[in-house]
């Protein structure tokens, strides 16, 4: 197996995994967003009461509004990811189907396809980096804000009450989504940077092809 093939295969596989991770967490983000919105609308949660501090009015509405934004971002997130995911799955499947016996031309063809896919989805990937970062931050705020309801804050410190332990997994899930989206954003921006450099490299070396085709004489 050549170095090029091994490198290309590794990158495609990782890009596929990041896209898949995005799809899964985008779906969870939508579900969690809906759950928080419904809880906030139905008023099943109370505004946090902290001993020694006044009740924060409208806190429930605030978390509901953040949840609504997260829900919207989740939908945008999943739509963007699907476009990227479909293209990468086709390329990955073709690459795996050819195996180690892949010809030079076939490998070049897949590289060209990947570049074309990146050019087509350049804007979407940029949007996705932004949406993932924003979603990650919002989910982090939501996780913290939601957990505040289950904290008893005093002048000397803070404590959990017993019932609230059951709600810790939900809070951890929210923080997990936040972490996953920030991680996806990081990897997408790194991949985008690498592919941008490659497009730039191609642009620079195109004069050799131009010369070969005799286009520079025109």
């Amino acid at each position, binding site marked *: 197996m050549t170095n090029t093939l091994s490198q290309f295969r590794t990158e495609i596989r990782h890009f596929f995994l990041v896209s898949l991770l995005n799809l899964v967490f985008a779906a969870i983000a939508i579900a969690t967003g809906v759950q928080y919105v419904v809880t906030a609308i139905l008023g099943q949660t109370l505004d946090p009461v902290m001993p020694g501090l006044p009740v924060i009015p409208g806190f429930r509405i605030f978390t509901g509004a953040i949840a609504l934004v997260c829900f919207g971002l989740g939908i945008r997130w999943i739509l963007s990811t699907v476009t990227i995911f479909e293209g990468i799955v086709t390329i990955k499947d073709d690459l795996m189907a050819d195996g180690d016996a892949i010809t030079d031309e076939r490998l070049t063809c897949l590289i060209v396809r990947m*570049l074309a896919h990146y050019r087509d989805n350049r804007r979407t990937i940029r949007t996705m980096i932004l949406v993932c970062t924003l979603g990650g931050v919002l989910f982090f705020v939501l996780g913290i804000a939601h957990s505040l309801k289950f904290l008893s804050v005093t002048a000397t410190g803070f404590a959990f009450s017993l019932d609230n332990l059951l709600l810790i997994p939900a809070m951890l899930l929210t923080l997990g989504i936040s972490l996953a989206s920030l991680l996806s954003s990081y990897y997408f921006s790194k991949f985008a940077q690498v592919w941008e450099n490659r497009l730039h490299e*191609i642009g620079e070396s195109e004069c050799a092809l131009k010369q070969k*085709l005799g286009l520079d004489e025109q």
Partner: protein
Amino acid sequence: MSGRRTIYEIYWEILVYCKSPRSFTGIINRCDLNSKNGQEYLEFLIAKGYITTVREGEKTSYLSTPPAGEYIALFSSMYQKLFDNPPGFRL
């Protein structure tokens, strides 16, 4: 192949596909081109001597010439070189 490609990528694709004689319809379908653009690309490659026409009765086919091999090899080496080095981050 579809998607946004450079003219050099399209030329490469046509030349590789035409390693065996191909019809005009086959070429434009395979390379996802409209007939106007397909005609222009083929005319250019014929003018440069990278493609030749083969007549079999009423049918006309297009075939890559030996000089096309040099362009194909140069293109392949350029594109494969992009993956010589790993990306600057840990996968």
